[in-house]
C-alpha cells in the first residue's frame, strides 16, 4: 500500500509552474528521500501533500485520502516538521507539549518524556529562545509522541551545524526503530538522507526525474574510467545512459546510469577493445551532482 501517491500533480504560482505532472508513490514503511536542488519544487510538493496549498491540476492522496480533504482524523496520523514552520514561539517547550497533546488520542507520554530527555531540550525555555537546531528538535518532539503513520520532514537539516545534524539523524534512526512508520524527507543535503533513506526520488524543475529504492539506484550508477588500448573507440553514439562522457588522452571517463556488468562487458569488448576499465560505485551525492550537471548541459544544448 502506498502512503503517498501523486498523479500528474501540478501547481502554478501565477504564471510560473512550480510542479509539472508530478507522479510519485511512497510505499508504507519506507523512508523516502525527496531530493532536488533549491527551487526544484520540494516544498511546494509537500505543501500540496499537507493541504497547505491546493494543486492546480492532478491529484495527491495521503494515507488513502485526497490531500484536499485531509481532516483531523488523517492529521492525527501525520507528523510534519518543516524548516519554514512557525511554531508558537511564545510558549515554552513544556507549554508546547501541553498544547499539542490533547489533539492526539494516541499521544504516548512515556515516549514524550523519553524524547524530551533524548533531545536534551530545556522544557522551561521559550521556543523563541531556542537555537535553530533546538527549534527543529522541538518541532520533531511534538510530531513524534503520537506515533504518526507518516512523518513528513521538509528540509530538516537546513541551518543545522554538523554536530546537531548527526544528533538529529541519530535521533531519527533511534525513533524509527521503535515505530513502524513511513518517513518522507525532503532535502538538498544528500549525505544526511543517504544514511536514513531506503528509497529516493529526485525532483528538478518541478518534474520527477526518478524515484526508486536507494539500493537499486546506487547499484545502477557506476563511475567508469577506461584506459584505451591501441584501438580507437567509437564515442559518437554512446548509449543513452552514459553521462558526463569525456576523453582525456587515452582515457575515457563517464558515468553509466544503467550499469550492468553483462551489458558493460559486451559493450567494452565491442568498442573498447584492448582496454582496461575501472568501475567504481558512486555515492548518492555524486549521482545527484552528475544528474544535475547533465540536465544543465542538456538544457544549455537545447537552448542553443
Amino acid at each position, binding site marked *: 500500500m502506498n502512503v503517498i501517491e501523486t498523479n500528474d500533480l501540478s501547481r502554478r504560482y501565477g504564471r510560473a509552474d512550480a510542479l509539472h505532472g508530478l507522479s510519485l508513490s511512497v510505499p508504507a514503511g519506507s523512508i523516502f528521500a525527496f531530493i532536488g536542488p533549491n527551487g526544484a519544487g520540494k516544498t511546494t510538493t509537500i505543501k500540496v501533500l499537507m493541504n497547505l496549498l491546493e494543486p492546480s491540476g492532478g491529484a495527491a492522496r495521503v494515507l488513502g485520502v485526497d490531500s484536499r480533504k485531509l481532516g*483531523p482524523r488523517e*492529521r492525527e496520523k501525520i507528523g*510534519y516538521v518543516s524548516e519554514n514552520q*512557525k511554531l*508558537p514561539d*511564545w510558549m515554552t517547550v513544556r507549554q508546547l507539549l501541553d*498544547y499539542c497533546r490533547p*489533539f492526539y488520542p494516541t499521544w504516548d507520554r512515556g515516549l514524550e518524556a523519553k524524547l524530551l530527555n533524548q533531545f536534551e531540550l530545556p522544557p522551561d525555555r521559550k521556543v523563541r529562545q531556542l537555537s535553530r537546531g533546538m527549534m527543529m528538535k522541538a518541532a520533531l518532539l511534538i510530531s513524534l509522541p503520537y506515533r504518526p503513520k507518516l512523518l513528513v520532514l521538509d528540509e530538516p537539516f537546513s541551518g543545522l551545524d554538523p554536530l546537531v545534524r548527526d544528533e538529529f539523524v541519530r535521533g531519527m534512526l533511534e525513533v524509527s526503530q521503535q515505530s513502524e512508520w513511513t518517513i518522507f524527507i525532503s532535502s538538498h543535503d544528500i549525505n544526511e538522507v543517504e544514511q536514513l533513506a531506503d528509497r529516493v526520488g529526485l525532483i528538478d524543475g518541478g518534474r520527477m526525474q526518478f524515484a526508486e529504492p536507494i539500493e537499486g539506484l546506487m547499484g545502477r550508477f557506476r563511475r567508469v574510467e577506461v584506459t584505451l588500448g591501441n584501438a580507437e573507440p567509437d564515442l559518437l553514439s554512446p548509449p543513452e545512459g552514459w553521462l558526463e562522457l569525456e576523453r582525456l588522452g587515452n582515457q575515457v571517463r563517464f558515468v553509466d546510469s544503467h550499469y550492468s556488468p553483462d551489458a558493460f562487458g559486451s559493450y567494452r569488448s565491442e568498442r573498447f577493445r584492448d582496454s582496461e576499465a575501472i568501475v567504481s560505485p558512486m555515492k548518492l551525492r555524486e549521482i545527484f551532482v552528475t544528474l544535475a550537471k547533465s540536465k544543465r548541459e542538456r538544457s544549455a544544448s537545447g537552448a542553443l
Partner: protein
Amino acid sequence: MNLTFHIALKDVYRLRWALLLWVVTIASELALASIQATLDVEGHVPFYMSAWTLGNIFIPVIGYGLVMGLQDDDPVTEGDAFWMTRPITGGRLLSAKALVLALLCLVPVLVCVPFWLSHDFGLALLGPSSAEMLWRQGLISLLAVPLAVVSSSGAKFVTNTLIGVVTLLGLALLYPLLEGSSLPEITAPVLVQKGWLILAVWLIASAAIALNQYYRRRTKLSATILLAAVIACFAIAKWWHGSGALRTATATPHASAPQLTEVAARAGATVVLKGRTLRILSVIPDFSSMVMIEVSESEPDTASAFPRSLGQAAAGSSAQEHYLLVSQDDGRAMTAEVTRNPEVLHAGGLRYFRTTLVFNPSRDLPGEVPTNMAPWLEDAVLVKVEGRAAGLFRLKGAPPPQASRT
C-alpha cells in the same frame, strides 16, 4: 468542544498581559472619572482629560489590538501556520476565536459591574448598560475582525488598518463632492436607517470574510468582499433616501416616570440613586439674594435609545428636567436657572457633567425673602426632577422645564 475550549484557553493565556492592561485601563478610567466628579472646576481638568484619553483612545485601541492579538497566533491566510499542520479544522479554530472574542466583549462589562452596583444600578439599568458596553466593544471587534483575518501578521494588520483609515478619510473628502443628499439634509430617522443598513452590510461582509478565511483561505476573495462592503457602505451613506418599510425605533427615555433626586443643599453633599449621582460642589449665597449652586452630576449613559451612538440621532429631546430648591423648614421652594457646562465625559457607562444653578429668591420665593439666605439654606434641599412628566412637578408660575441633554 473540549478542544475548542483548549484552543480558546491557549489564546486567553497568550493575551493575559494585554487583557490585564486593558482591565487596569478600564478601571483607571472609572477611577479618574469618579475623582474628577468630586473636584472643583480647576482641579478636575487633569483627571477629566486623563479619563477622556483613556476612554476614547486607549481603551478602544487596546480592544482593537486585542482582536489582532487573538488572530495573530493562528493566521488564516495562505501559508503554513502551525494550526494548519495539526488536527485542527477551520471550523474548530473559528469557534475558539469566536468564544474568546465574546469574552473580549464581556471584559469591559465585567469590570464595570461592581462600579455600576456601587452607583445603585438596579437590574433595569444593568441590562441596558451592559448591552451598551457590549455594543461598543462589539463594534470595535467588527471593525477589526475582517482586517485581522486577511492579515498574516501583526505588522500587516497595522498596515491594513492604516490603509483603512486613509480610505475612510478619502471617502469622507469625496462625500461632499459627489451628487446626492448632504448630511444636513438627512433627517434623524433616515440617519438611523443608514446606520443600521451600514452595520448590516458590514456584519454580513465580516461574517463572509471570516468564514472564507477559516474554511478556504482565499485571501484575494476576502479582500474583494471587503472592498465591495466599503463601496456598499459608502453608497448607503450617500444615496440611501430612507424607506418607509424600514421602521426606526423611537427613542424612549429610560426614566419615563418622573424621577426625583434629593440632596442637602450644602457643599460636599452627595446622593446616589438609581445610577444617578448628584454632588453639590459649592453653594454660594450672596447678599443680593441670589443663590448659586455648582453641581457635579452623573447618570447612566443609556438615557436615550439603544445603542447610544445610533439612538442619539433619533432620540431628540423628549426627556425634561428641572431643579428645585426646597426649604424643609418653611416648605417654600424656587426653581433654578440652569447653565450646563458643555464638557460631558462618557466613562464606564455613565455620563458626567456639571451644572450651575442660579436661584433668585427675591423673584421666585413666595413671601418674605430673608436678607441673608445662609440660614434658610441650612434646611434646604436641592431636588432634581427629570423624566417625561417632569413638568408635573413644576412650581406655579415657574418657567417650563428644560429639555435634558441626551
